[in-house]
């Protein structure tokens, strides 16, 4: 029976949904940024696989069905940008130039540090898109021969740093313009940072969600030239 259960795609599907619910519950109880439901859910599943010596391939059958949906998840981000089209038209040039500068800084600083710290090529490629939203970052890493799992982890770290320290950054770097603040949060810490930007103000939040989409597009184009 165990074999039948483990070889069914429903194993991965059920376990993932359950772990996600536990993650949401823990986040609600603690209210900490670090208790991200994604981190908790992934950690729980890894723990389950390791403790019960379940091969990753059993989980992967159901897991693949879920990660297949990352395509549609990215596609529907278009509605975000569409809803903000008025704001985008108003600040088009500063926003696009700002995002371009952010993406260039991101890729440049990551590659430089990777070279400096003698990081393996496959890891460097996985880290490169880490400042954009997970769905796009993983697609970019995969198309460049990186390891999507490592990209997802790096995206998460960058996002948490942004979400935790965004107000501190604004103070330390003397950023007072709400458009600049919102775009900068979105450019360095994507959707996780956007949740914080929405708390800071509606304009910051809207700008941050615009930056997610624009930086995603710019980064995937820029990596073509590397």
């Amino acid at each position, binding site marked *: 029976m165990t074999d039948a259960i483990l070889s069914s795609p429903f194993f991965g599907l059920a376990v993932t949904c359950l772990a996600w619910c536990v993650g949401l519950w823990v986040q609600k109880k603690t209210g900490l940024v670090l208790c991200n439901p994604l981190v908790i859910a992934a950690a729980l599943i890894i723990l389950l696989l390791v403790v019960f010596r379940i091969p990753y391939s059993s989980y992967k059958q159901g897991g693949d069905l879920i*990660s297949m949906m990352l395509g549609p*998840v990215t596609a529907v981000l*278009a509605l975000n940008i569409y809803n903000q089209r008025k704001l985008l038209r108003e600040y088009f040039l500063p926003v696009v*130039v700002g*995002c371009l500068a952010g993406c260039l800084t991101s890729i440049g600083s990551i590659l430089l540090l990777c070279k400096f*710290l003698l990081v393996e090529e*496959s890891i460097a490629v996985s880290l490169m898109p880490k400042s954009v939203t997970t769905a796009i970052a993983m697609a970019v890493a995969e198309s460049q021969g990186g390891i999507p799992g490592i990209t997802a982890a790096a995206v998460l770290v960058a996002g948490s740093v942004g979400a935790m320290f965004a107000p501190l950054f604004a103070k330390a770097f003397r950023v007072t313009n709400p458009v*600049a603040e919102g775009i900068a949060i979105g450019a360095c810490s994507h959707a996780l940072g956007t949740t914080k930007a929405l708390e800071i103000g509606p304009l910051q939040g809207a700008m941050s969600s615009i930056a997610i989409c624009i930086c995603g597009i710019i980064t995937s184009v820029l990596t073509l030239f590397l």
Partner: protein
Amino acid sequence: MSIMAEIAIVFGVCLVSEGIAALLPFTFPASVISMILLLALLLSGIIKERHIDRVCRFFVGNMAFFFIPPCVGIIEHAETLAACLLPFLVISILTTPVIYLVTAWVIQLMMAARRKKEVSSHD
């Protein structure tokens, strides 16, 4: 609009994007193409917001859920990651404020220049 029709539109856009990605002479993520394609369809008015509203809300509202399987996939690369854990953390953490600083100041300077121009044109 029926929920199945909404799903069909979103999946259809993704399917067409896979086709476009295959035609391109370079490797480009199909998911980014699907985002651009859907944006173009919305802007041109071919697809209205109400045509995809509920599916969008579901996907965006539960976005992080779909990233769980790739994160669990780290288990397959545990050794690679453990070998470079320190540089991995240093790079992921340190570059974040740098990107913030550059992006914010490029925009602040551009906005300040624009304001100056507006003020001088009023004189």
